[in-house]
């Protein structure tokens, strides 16, 4: 039981990262085995080890820290232990207060001293993960329902292992259909996406009747956030959210994954202000050149004009239009093109940005769809008049996002280097993928002028595919 406490302390020291629980636990099991062996070696060292848990001691390197341990043996042990501690704090993520089942402890104790030095095989790792409780429905307690779509229901839940809140996306499996394509794609893409601005998939529970995806839980989505602050966001926060959105998106695009359903409802925000892309049900990888792509993508309000006109040959710029719409929405508090039909949507777009001509959109005059609509000739209105709160650089970014021609739209990678984000400093650009920008001191949310306290409405979190298509 003493050992258990040690582990708990270790875990509670570690910072939550975006690695999946699976990895961290496998790591944990290995650590456990290693420690067990050392336990037989010298029980007397355990107090020493505890002293190492204080973060300050991490500054001591094993080489010059020789004075810390009286004998060479204990020095070696200390060095070894320190290393594994670093490793733990680096790699362990979620299990803050993990409660391991007693059977597992017994099992781990049984095989400890002999084969502890050997790395775990894949199979035994998976088996131990399953023993811990991963991939099992009973590990998670369902709390309130957060939203429901035609094929999936999202619950707020709690993990019995970590006592952390999770979001459970439960997909009912139709007997004839098997695992739906959207789910297959969402899972396989999210498994590849490990980034501070992309929602983390912790676990998958696949049974005969349902497929449950366990995500990290975030309090709000951007839509709710906007509602909560009375659609009046602080412009500094707009910038921080925009940066995180573009950062997450540039990571996806680097991996050749298109999100294809960007909208405020799919951008989750936690109390720290971290923004994460969610709902990859419509996403697809463009890494394998395939035939047509569906053009029933992207919620109507955020759908780019080329897709509205029926284009199925699209690439990463399809997401950039939506980013522009979201920027406008954050800056003004209202959606930019709230159309209800394709025609109305196009009409709204052309009224604001001007009816496209061959100069603004090459070869548009030969587009049959476009000609069939017969829109009147509108002049482009200056965006400044519509978003007075956005500064000049912000307007510049917005206008390079809302361009008719795909290839002219700014890319996510270029976007995060845009002068609009200069005030955030240089360091945000050099962060590792899995580090949140809020680890930097200079990045802090400011109070939104219209904030009404934390009244969260957990309704209609558009986490399902069918909801998201009009």
């Amino acid at each position, binding site marked *: 039981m003493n050992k258990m406490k040690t582990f708990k302390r270790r875990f509670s020291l570690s910072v939550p990262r975006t690695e999946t629980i699976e990895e961290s636990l496998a790591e944990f099991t290995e650590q456990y085995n290693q420690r067990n062996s050392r336990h037989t070696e010298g029980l007397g060292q355990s107090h020493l080890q505890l002293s190492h848990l204080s973060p300050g001691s991490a500054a001591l390197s094993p080489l010059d820290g020789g004075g810390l341990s009286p004998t060479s043996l204990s020095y070696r042990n200390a060095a070894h232990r320190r290393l594994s501690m670093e490793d733990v704090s680096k790699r362990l993520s979620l299990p803050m207060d993990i409660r391991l089942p007693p059977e597992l402890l017994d099992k781990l104790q049984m095989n400890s001293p002999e084969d502890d030095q050997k790395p775990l095989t*894949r*199979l035994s790792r998976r088996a131990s993960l399953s023993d811990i409780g991963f991939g099992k429905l009973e590990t998670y307690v369902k709390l309130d329902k957060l939203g429901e779509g035609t094929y999936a229901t999202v619950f707020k839940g709690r993990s019995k292992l970590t006592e952390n809140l999770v979001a459970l996306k439960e997909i009912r*499996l*139709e*007997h*004839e*259909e*098997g*695992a*739906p*394509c959207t789910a*297959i*794609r969402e*899972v*396989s*893409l999210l*498994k*590849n996406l490990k980034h501070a601005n992309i929602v983390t998939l912790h676990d*998958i529970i*696949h049974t*005969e009747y349902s497929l449950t995806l366990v995500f990290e839980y975030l309090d709000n989505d951007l839509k709710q956030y906007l509602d909560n602050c009375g659609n009046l966001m602080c412009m500094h926060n707009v910038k921080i959210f925009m940066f995180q959105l573009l950062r997450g998106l540039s990571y996806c*695009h680097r*991996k*050749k*994954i298109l999100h294809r359903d960007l909208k405020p409802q799919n951008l989750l925000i936690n109390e720290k202000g971290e923004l994460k892309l969610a709902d990859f049900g419509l996403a*697809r*990888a*463009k*890494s*394998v*050149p*395939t*035939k*047509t*792509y*569906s053009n*029933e993508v992207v919620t109507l309000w955020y759908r780019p004009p*080329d897709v509205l006109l029926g*284009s199925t*040959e*699209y*690439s*990463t*710029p399809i997401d950039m239009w939506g980013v522009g719409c979201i920027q406008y929405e954050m800056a003004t508090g209202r959606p930019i093109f709230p159309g209800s039909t394709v025609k109305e949507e196009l009409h709204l777009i052309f009224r604001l940005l001007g009816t496209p001509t061959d100069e603004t959109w090459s*070869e548009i005059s*030969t*587009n*049959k769809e476009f000609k069939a609509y017969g829109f009147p000739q509108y002049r482009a209105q200056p965006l400044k008049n519509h978003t007075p709160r956005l500064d000049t650089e912000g307007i510049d970014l917005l206008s390079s996002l809302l361009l008719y021609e*795909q*290839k002219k739209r700014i*890319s996510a990678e270029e976007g995060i280097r845009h002068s609009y984000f200069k005030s955030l400093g240089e360091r945000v650009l050099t962060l590792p993928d899995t580090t949140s920008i809020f680890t930097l001191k200079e990045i802090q949310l400011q109070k939104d002028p219209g904030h009404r306290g934390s009244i969260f409405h957990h309704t209609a979190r558009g986490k399902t595919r*069918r909801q998201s298509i009009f």
Partner: protein
Amino acid sequence: MKHRMSGIFRGFPPRDEDGPGPECNFQSFPFLPGHPQLSERVRKRLYYGLEGDCPMENLTSPVADIAVELLQKAAPSPIRRLQKQYAAHVSREACISPCSMMLALVYIERLRHKNPDYLQQISSSDLFLISLMVASKYLYDEGEEEEVFNDEWGAAGRLDVNTVNTLEMNFLHAIDWSLYTHPREFFEVLRWLEGRVAEQQGLKRGWFTYTDSCVLLEQGLWQKVFSDFCQQFTRLACILGLMYLTGVATLFASVAVLHKASGEINKTVLVPSIKAQSPGHGIFIPLTMPSPALSEEILSPPAAPCALEEEELTEKRPGVTATALYLWGSMLTALVSGDKGLLADEESLPPDRLCPFCSKQRSTTWPQPGSRHNHTQHCSNKQYVRAFPGLDHYSFPDTTFCPSSPNACMVSHSGPIPPGAMSGPLELKPISCTAADFARLKTFIVPG
């Protein structure tokens, strides 16, 4: 159902590019070919036939052969062993696109590394069906209406839905849901598949089509084999070319010597004929001499025209038939002896010295076993080369002048032309060939 499925796997119809072309859409990934390009490549190389309207919605026989072979190897379980007939049936019923097939092969490869235990348990027929099903589901993107359900896959594979569902669940678990594929992996598999198809079809047929050879040339191993072959071939060609040139050079050298000899005997006949020839050829000299394109390859046209001219010359001089006969005889002997000498020479040299650009080596080791006259002639030719600095840089063997360029004949009769006439580069000097000239020339060339 078939209709529905065919909608989903609607092969790769060549789309007419109304809107923006694929290049601009793929701008973010410049190394990825657009879909039309890929389908064109697949159509050609995986034997989908040349008709543009032929939909690519099942597996071609060569591809099926290879898939069956690979799957049998990957999943060695003897139960429900995959047969080509079954593979063909499934691919026809489910309208499998070549892209799904390749993706399925990527997954099987991945399983082989990640989870070999799973492959031991599953039968190859099931693996075939389920990997294709998951690959198509992953790729599928045609809107909700056209989704293919597992029961339809079950019907295509003659399995019931429950089995298909369980298989799917196990497969996804075994591969740990990692279905995302990097383009590099995909194209690796495509290249491998193309290579196997080309190899197998070529061997079956007994010869390789143009496309087959193109495909095979892209493969690493074949590329190496081919380049080795090329190297050997070039080496052989170099040796042979050199031998030939040496022979021809010796021939002309001896002819020239004989001319000289006969000229001393019969000046009156010989001198006018040279006078008639040389100015015409002299025109060519400035034009062709500086050309750096003179390389070994162009140096090999046959000496036939020269020989012909030689004959004409002899015909023009009916009075010297005896001389002509003697000339032929000496020519032949010179040829034979020159070849022999050269062969001995070549063998003694390491092969890399035989490369056409290090002919210096050759020219220095040029001991001709021919007659004394021959040797003298050789030296005189060398003088000519030196007279042109550009050529000197290339350091051609003396023989380079002989048969190849338009001035070949000039060289062949160049014996009497004094070096001064040649070295004055772009001027045509009247050439007076007299016996005195010859004597002077001789002393100039061979001062000893």
